[in-house]
């Protein structure tokens, strides 16, 4: 569906995107991950042909961008991208007409979506009177109303309450079942973990990790231990054989150097803590993210100290 190869974009002195390649396939959800300012939005804008890459190519079903491609893509920008003063239905109809949808057809589709999102009562309200979450839903409706084959959502979950987050997840999975290609960006790893078939992790403009979620997790091996406990777990990062540790209040994830010393480790921990669960698991995406991005941040800081 979409193939991005080696795109690069430089703003005066800052390289926002540096050689990013990715691929979105029909019937798959691609998660575009990365910390704030990593270059996710710039990448998306280049895919949408809003800005041009300095170098690199982007093809849609093997063809370069053309006017017909516009209508194949649906886009929800990060900050909703809605008019404030206009009435909800009018705004939806306007964007539909920009896409060339006949007005009665557009009305029918808008009605279906509004009903689904529980927004029917608001159709005659001004958009600014809606809550942030509801505005987000309106933005989403606008992005899919023309039945695009490629749906690109920039931080679609921000501002949604848990119930609506679940609803949106269901809809994304539905789009996937319909054979659409979906790309969404987020910095919340749990969303990506539950939804994505493939991920593309970007940091400081570069792809640091790319591939199918399954493959990535197994690549990071089975040397992660999940512990649920009571007590003060702050000593765990200093235990022998522990490579990295993410210690939370009653929960910790330890990444070990090898898988050989697990029972020994359990004994040591059990001496100090009331262990409720001790399990060997695949690493969470969050842990991978922290490891890759965090390590980079640290080395950057070190370099900064030396310079």
């Amino acid at each position, binding site marked *: 569906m979409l193939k991005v190869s080696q795109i690069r974009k430089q703003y005066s002195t800052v390289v926002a995107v540096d050689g990013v390649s990715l691929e979105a396939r029909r019937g798959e959800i691609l998660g575009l991950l990365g910390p704030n300012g990593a270059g996710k939005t710039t990448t998306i804008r280049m895919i949408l042909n809003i800005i041009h890459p300095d170098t690199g190519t982007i093809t849609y079903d093997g063809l370069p961008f053309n*006017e017909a491609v516009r209508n194949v893509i649906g*886009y929800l920008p990060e900050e909703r*991208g809605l*008019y404030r*003063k206009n009435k909800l239905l009018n705004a939806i109809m306007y964007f539909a007409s*920009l896409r060339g949808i006949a007005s009665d057809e557009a009305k029918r589709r808008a009605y279906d979506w509004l009903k689904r999102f529980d927004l029917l009562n608001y159709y005659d309200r001004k958009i600014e009177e809606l809550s942030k979450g509801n505005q987000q839903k309106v933005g989403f409706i606008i992005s899919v109303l023309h039945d695009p084959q490629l749906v690109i959502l920039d931080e679609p979950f921000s501002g949604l309450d848990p119930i609506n987050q679940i609803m949106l997840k269901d809809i994304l999975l539905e789009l996937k079942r319909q054979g659409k290609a979906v790309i969404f960006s987020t910095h919340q790893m749990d969303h990506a973990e539950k939804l994505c078939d493939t991920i593309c992790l970007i940091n400081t403009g570069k792809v640091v990790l790319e591939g199918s979620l399954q493959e990535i997790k197994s690549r990071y091996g089975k040397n992660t231990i999940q512990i649920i406990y009571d007590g003060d777990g702050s000593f765990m990062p200093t235990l022998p054989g522990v490579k990295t540790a993410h210690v939370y209040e009653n929960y910790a994830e330890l990444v070990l150097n090898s898988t050989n010393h697990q029972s020994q480790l359990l004994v040591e921990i059990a001496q100090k803590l009331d262990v409720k669960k001790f399990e060997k698991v695949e690493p969470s995406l969050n842990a991978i993210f922290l490891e890759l991005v965090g390590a980079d941040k640290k080395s950057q800081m070190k370099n900064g100290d030396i310079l």
Partner: protein
Amino acid sequence: MFVVARWEYVEKIKSKAFIISIVLIPVIMLAMGVVPGLLASRPDTDSRKIGVFDKTAELFHPLQEYLDKRFKLPDGKPNYLLIPLADTVNSVKEGKNLADALVMAGDIEGYVIIPKTIMTDSSIEYRSENVGNIRVTDRLTGAIRYLVVQHKLHERGIDPVFAKELTSPLEMKTIKLSKTGEEESGFAQVFFTAYVFMMMLLFLVMTSGQLLVRSMLEEKSNRVVEVLVSSCSPTDLMAGKILGLSGLGLTQMGIWAIIGIAISLKFGITLIALPSALLLLVYFILGYLLYAGIFVTVGAPVSTEQEAQQITSYLTIILVLPVALALPVMQNPNSSLVTILTYFPLMTPTMMAMRIPINMPSAGEIIATIALLVVSAAGVIWAAGKIFRAAILVYGKRPTIPELFRFLRA
């Protein structure tokens, strides 16, 4: 493109601000023109008491007679009651002090001192709390001058009627010649036509230019623009905007023009011949497009309300400049400086607006200026498209001039 145009037009025309401005602006303009006049010309309702020190001892009564005859209150009473004042026995100064006290106490409006030497040095003094009441001072000086002149004429034995004949002003009737025949038309009328045209262009550019910048700013600040340019091409978006908002401005103008024409027909004023009007319309539209392009070019990179205001006010200054030049241009429409200014695209429409009603320029010149306008409007809109495309997505910081040039080459 037409979808965008319709949206901009329909959504804005429904807004309260637009409806209010349609009604309010003419009302304000009318008020500015008429109310001060009404206030100033409102007749007095009570007689005003004016003290008079008549050192000549012969002007008091004629002055009262003259004022009584000329200025009456609506109810027939005299408008001005003169109170004779005299020097006290002791000194001139004491008399003045007493009179000043009367003024301060509000017994008299003010008082006038007519010195003995009035016949030779023609100077009088008026003392009052309020010397800003021009009507009183004008009428008093007028009356006293008349009396002095009469007195002098009488002394020399000249017949006052003959004197009046001597001083009667010369009247000149101006007749504008044109190919279709002679038509009577005063300078004031031509001036008025050109002025109306300029004001209309000014208003249209200001209102729709501001709308244009604002609408871009709004779409930019809530990122609607990203959705827009991912749904249609930036060129369509820009063209649609210009079209829609021009339509809006023209609707506004149209409503006012219809009202204006209705009023002028009622009062039997013919404004301008039809061919000239059509020609002016061409300049009007081309000029408008040129300015719209400029507004887009400078408005697209803007990201705050303050910047937007600054930029629109700069542009307005360029536009107002020809209005300031109006009078000298109309007095000498064929001077070479005016011709040069006509070829400065930003001024072409307004300059032509002044020249066409006064003295139709040659066909060659008209074609040349229209061509110039077309080329510059097209050029500006082309550049606007490029800059719009790039700059509308620049957030936070204003692009530098070199960056703008890079956008142009992109």
